[in-house]
């Protein structure tokens, strides 16, 4: 019973806010049912379900803030959580960057709930595992994968009457398929809000093909190559870059978006002219909550990069006030514009290049330039005259997504992907890029 109805949630929130004697308060309820199934070596290894609901209460006396949480909802428990938060606030040091609770806001409608995903049960999860393992067993391949589904709700109310309630669902499937001799490996990932169109039996074929096709990899010299990054491969680098879109860090001089001499790069041409990126909480198939997680500021469609020019960064409420900027919500999703071509179309127009199926273990090397290092894996192929010629050994790359997005040849059709590095919902195109920097070879399969 972790998904409370709007009426149930509002009753609890109204009651708990009413108990508070603090200058102001915000109460938030979060509940979710999460299910999972994990398999490896062509056997199910674990399966489980968790069901949890929690009430958080944040109160403030002046600039002193206290927070307490509880998972019981009778009147005595609700009063207890308020008193505990108030006690903590009285003991807390003043926060000079404290921002008062928001007055009543208007939130747009976003479609974040799908009944088909909320209806996933143990039998569905078992079938996903069976549909993944069965074809692999039949072709002497070995599957290891994971499905995690979630249905939940969030609701909040503050002492100024600002209120929100929303339900959401998500499902994330990944599977790694390896050849029995360990010389080939493929991967597939499918991250969706609505599982109606998800079919593990079809997806697994992608990973199986890549596993078989990558088995006789040849070694190429590391160096600069034209690459085609599949959306999942590109997402790892883009997601990492988005961690550093904070305006305060840029204004403080410690970001790749800082300007020499002071200030930030807002309005400057930071990327190639092909790059346009925006955030849109209502984007079909990639919708997110209509408010941000920290402050409950209303999200709206906002451009981030337009034709390579930086037009928006993330501002905290404190920093936007200090800089005299209007308050805006933190980006909830990232949508990159692209073209209409598939990855296969991009391959067909490539004279020589490397197809990268997936990137892995991406870490910051130098925040000054967002230089990232990481590796290719699960299907890296040499392209010649518009065709995949042969699999190649995996590479380590040292590349900045900023430099990479200044070397764009062409973008294909964007798709929803989830990066290993971030939980942000992203829509990313396959990317054809010149002069991508591989610095060494990896023997890993």
């Amino acid at each position, binding site marked *: 019973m972790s998904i409370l109805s709007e009426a149930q949630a509002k009753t609890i929130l109204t009651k708990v806010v009413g108990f508070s004697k603090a200058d102001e308060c915000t109460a938030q309820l979060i509940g979710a049912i999460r299910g999972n199934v994990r398999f490896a070596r062509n056997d199910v290894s674990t399966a489980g379900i968790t069901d949890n609901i929690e009430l958080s209460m944040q109160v403030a006396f002046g600039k002193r803030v206290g927070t307490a*949480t509880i998972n019981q909802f009778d009147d005595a428990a609700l009063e207890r959580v308020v008193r505990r938060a108030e006690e903590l606030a009285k003991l807390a040091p003043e926060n000079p960057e404290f921002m008062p609770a928001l007055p009543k806001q208007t939130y747009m409608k976003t479609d974040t709930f799908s009944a088909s995903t909320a209806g996933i049960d143990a039998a569905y999860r078992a079938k996903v595992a069976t549909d993944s393992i069965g074809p692999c067993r039949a072709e002497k391949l070995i599957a290891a994968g994971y499905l995690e589904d979630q249905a939940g709700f969030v609701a909040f109310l503050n002492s100024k009457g600002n209120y929100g309630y929303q339900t959401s669902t998500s499902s994330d499937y990944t599977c790694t398929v390896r050849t029995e001799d360990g010389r080939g490996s493929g991967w597939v990932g499918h991250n969706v809000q609505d599982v109606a169109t998800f079919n593990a039996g079809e997806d697994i074929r992608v990973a199986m093909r890549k596993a078989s096709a990558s088995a006789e990899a040849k070694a190429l010299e590391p160096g600069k190559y034209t690459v085609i990054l599949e959306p999942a491969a590109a997402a790892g680098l883009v997601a990492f870059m988005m961690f550093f879109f904070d305006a305060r860090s840029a204004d403080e*001089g*410690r970001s790749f978006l800082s300007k020499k001499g002071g200030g930030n790069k807002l309005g400057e041409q930071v990327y190639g002219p092909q790059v346009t990126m925006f955030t849109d909480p209502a984007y079909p198939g990639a919708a997110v909550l209509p408010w941000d997680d920290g402050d409950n500021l209303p999200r709206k469609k906002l451009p981030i990069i337009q034709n390579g020019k930086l037009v928006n960064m993330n501002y905290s409420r404190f920093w936007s006030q200090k800089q005299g900027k209007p308050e805006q919500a933190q980006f909830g999703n990232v949508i990159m514009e692209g073209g209409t071509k598939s990855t296969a179309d991009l391959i067909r127009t490539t004279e020589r290049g490397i197809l990268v199926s997936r990137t892995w273990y991406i870490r910051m090397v130098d925040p000054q330039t967002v230089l990232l290092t990481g590796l290719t894996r699960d299907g890296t192929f040499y392209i010649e005259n518009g065709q995949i010629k042969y699999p190649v050994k995996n590479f380590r790359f040292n590349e900045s997504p900023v430099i990479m997005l200044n070397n764009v040849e062409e973008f294909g059709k964007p798709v929803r992907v989830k990066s290993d590095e971030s939980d942000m919902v992203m829509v990313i195109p396959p990317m054809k890029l010149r002069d991508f920097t591989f610095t060494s070879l990896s023997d890993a399969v």
Partner: protein
Amino acid sequence: MHRRDFLAFGAAGVGGLVLPSMFGKVIAAEELNSAIDVAVKKALADAAMNAAKSAGASYCDVRVGRYLRQFVITRERNVENVVNTESTGVGIRVIANGAWGFAATNEMTKEAVAKAAGQAVAIAKANAPGQSAPVQLAPVTGVGEVSWRTPIVKNSMTVPIKDKVDLLMGVNAAALDAGASFIRSILFLVNEQKYFASTDGSYIDQDVHRIWAPMEVTAVDKASGKFRVREGLSAPMGLGYEYLDGAASGKTVLPNGVTVYGQSYDMKEDAVAAAKQAMAKIKAPSVKPGKYDLVLDPSHTWLTIHESVGHPLELDRVLGYEANYAGTSFATMDKLKANFHYGSDKVNIVADKTQPGSLGAVSYDDEGVKTKKWDLIRDGKLVGYQAIRDQAHIEGKAASDGCAYADSWSNVQFQRMANVSLEPGKAKLSVADMISNVEDGIYIIGDGSFSIDQQRYNAQFGGQLFYEIKQGKITQQIEDVAYQIRTPEFWNGCAGVCDASDYRLGGSFFDGKGQPAQVSAVSHGSSTARFNGINVINTARSLG
């Protein structure tokens, strides 16, 4: 998630409503000083085990856990957050019809745990028909009622918040006064009150303490647009608040004048040094790429050991159970049988769940197995993996290595990395003597950027401080250094390890593995070590 990621997490300025949910419910500070009565825990465990046996389990273990955490997060002259969290509940694992089942509840009543035990048995029975072979558990003899506590001097949870805030405010002021542009400093304190009972006849009560005091000092030169960060040189430790006493006995001054820390940390002193060194990093010349002999301080080497030895020698990775998440391993079973030359004869690497002051030290693991120290690499040859009870038979071992761990009562225990450490050299060798023999090298202090492939062959590491060595002398501080390795070549390039007087621990507070993901804390010790002929790249780039 590693420590760096936690710093980034803190830097995002996450509000109080978000942070606690990662770790449990928020509680008042005074509640951190209490514990659940052992008799209550035993009664719950017995209720669960009786219910499991009645339902048909052939084995049952029960973990009654209370996990306490406290964070104090600051930047410059502000306290951003003080949070205390608690998570309490009971996890029940059973074997029925030869298969595992697991269920957990946060209701601390006999009825609730008995119900969860029944659910665990039902899950096991449902999983059994699809199982290729029944679970084989390495035997464990019950030890009756025993208890153990991390040997701490000062319980961090009893130190008043005000003292902690005052400490961090003093640290931040010292860094800013020394020229830092920015500083973020954090205290992160953990107390795991873990009670383990099993149908083998064990009732084990353990009180585990850990402490971590990371910081990140930034220098900005607005005129040039350059900035550099120098992170703290502390290590997360299995110690109490005494770790922050800054005792002289915990300090070592290296040949280049840099102070590093062992069993005690002087956070303010390190903050001042960090401010000066961050400014020096801005002006330091860029490294010329090429092959160098590397001299690696223990504050750096721990992470290389962790990634290139600790992880590839986890048996579940070797077997393929982590293929879709953490990855597999190049160190396959055939290499164990052939005593693969993992490194030079200078390389002796041990796994150890008993090491005092380490993050992984406990008396019994989360399967009730008495912990121990064992060899992974001896004289450069691969001789062992890290295995738990249901894996021991696969490696041909009669007993578990005692390295099972769960990060919560609500997660099932599985194989996690023990403390994995490089033994010091047996012959007397100081850091100064080691450096005096290096013709063309780089001396690296502190851990930095890290990345390794899914089979643990190809890795790249950065650091905090880099110094050029020419003809046996340290000549200057340099920047933009990262080295790339192929694991066996790197360890076979180990040309020497300093003696035990230089031995120190480093470690990770948040080592991620498994799906759903769990974290664990693990230490890695070494003395300063030399690695010959390592490929160094220059990481400087221009955004135009």
